[in-house]
């Protein structure tokens, strides 16, 4: 435990959770977005509606799911619908306020690569899992938030592959994108918002103890910063306790002894 009393990942999760408020309808990716969205739900935002792409609407998991289709999500959901229905009626039908995603890599426009690292598409050096629901979440949610660790490996000048973007820079194109695309990126160092006109990410806030230099050092493009940078409030004891309890419950629930392999 660092001397701050919390880890950078805890700060990132808490900062992401704080953004989700009221009765927002949130389409949740697995991992960090799911931890943040559930932290919001069990602390300041009990009425948020969490949707997972497995078709679980209004899921209220007591422990974090390991996959987007865990039984815990179905058991605690308001309703469970089919996969075509979740993507057609609920996502593309415009019911989702926030698409909350993780990413392997992003560029300065918040475009996401989850497809390949190095080499070509046909002959990649490292093949990643691919698109999943991201391209249409990015296209159809009213806005997209991305949460990921800040490093030179993740914040790149040019993506090897644009898996998911959610908007087009060509104003002539009647693309069908309904939402604003990626609007916010939350990392372990700070928070970036996209410029509504250019889509470029602008650093808006630094987490406690983080200096601007560290953020620019870990970003492979020339990151612009707001003139008056905000300072994120450190996690409160209440937030930290809720998050740690959630992770604790989760590890107990999923740490059952091996029954195979």
């Amino acid at each position, binding site marked *: 435990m660092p001397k701050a009393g919390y880890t950078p990942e805890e700060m990132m999760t808490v900062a992401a959770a704080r953004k989700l408020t009221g009765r927002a309808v949130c389409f949740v990716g697995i991992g960090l977005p799911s931890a943040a969205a559930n932290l919001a739900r069990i602390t300041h935002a009990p009425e948020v509606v969490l949707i997972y792409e497995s078709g679980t609407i209004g899921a209220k998991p007591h422990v974090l799911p*390991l*996959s987007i289709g865990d039984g815990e999500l179905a058991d605690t959901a308001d309703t469970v619908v089919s996969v075509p229905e979740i993507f*057609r009626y609920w996502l593309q039908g415009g019911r989702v306020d926030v698409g909350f995603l993780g990413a392997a890599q992003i560029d300065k426009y918040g475009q996401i690569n989850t497809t390949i690292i190095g080499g070509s598409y046909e002959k990649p050096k490292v093949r990643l*899992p691919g*698109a999943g629901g991201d391209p249409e979440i990015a296209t159809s949610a009213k806005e997209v938030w991305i949460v990921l660790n800040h490093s030179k490996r993740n914040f790149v000048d040019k993506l090897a592959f644009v898996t998911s973007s959610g908007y087009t820079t060509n104003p002539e194109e009647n693309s069908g994108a309904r939402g604003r695309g990626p609007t916010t990126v939350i990392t372990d160092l700070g928070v970036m918002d996209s410029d509504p006109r250019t889509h470029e990410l602008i650093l808006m806030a630094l987490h406690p103890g983080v200096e601007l230099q560290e953020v620019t050092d870990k970003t492979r493009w020339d990151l612009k910063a707001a003139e008056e940078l905000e300072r994120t409030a450190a996690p409160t004891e209440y937030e930290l306790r809720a998050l740690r309890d959630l992770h604790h419950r989760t590890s107990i629930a999923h740490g*059952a002894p091996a029954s195979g392999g």
Partner: protein
Amino acid sequence: MAEITSLREAIAGLVGDGSQVAMEGFTHLIPFAAGHEIVRQGKRDLKLVRMIPDLIYDQLIGMGLASSLTFSWGGNPSVGSLHRFRDAIQSGWPRPLDIEEHSHADMAARYQAGASRLPFSVMRGYVGSDLPRHNKNIRFLDCPFTGEQLAVSPALNPDIAILHAQKADWKGNVLVHGIVGIQKEAALASKKVIVTVEEIVKELNAPMNACVLPGWVITCICEVPGGAHPSYAHGYYARDNAFCTAWDTISSDRETFLGWMNRHIVGTSDFAEFRQSIAADRRN
């Protein structure tokens, strides 16, 4: 009308070399027992279709049984990489694998189009994505009414769908509950359908609006208790997360993978024996 058979007979009779096979189950009800039986029977040149290839296709790909894969997310859920899938794409081991890659929404729409016997699916999608540049089966069409650009892909009509479900009755009607995923669409899109079930009961007693596949759309029903392990069957057993984590190690090395497959799958006669084999391994 569905015939109730052994899994061995169903796979032998309905899965041919070169068949286009869709083994579905969206993180839930994944038909692992059927996948193993395909490995035992050494089916060749399969054209695999599945939204999330998962461990089940990692096994088939690693054994060199697949010539192509159509998919939308190729990871080990909650763990990370699918190593056999990666090795096939990155290094062509044990043989090159042609991939056709879509998004989840698109794959779901393609099954719906297939079930509807329409030629293609239509949706809003892929805005700004590089995927359409690498997949000739993702194209764009202007809406004839509004001019909006929409993404279209050909319908999926696999030769055979293989699914797992909780229950069937004596007439072969199948009840699926919990996360129903893409089960219904995959069944109705495909030319033949095999369903493995936890149990065959006299009466389904399904609630009125439950997801029931009538026996007359299914070709074969096979009773295979535990047949979705290490995924789960809601109401019967939970996901075996430890196995999915262990798979990361088993599959990360070619020799370890082949040794494990030969010992536990090729070297056993059916799924029950496979379960005993891995349980014995765990005790030692």
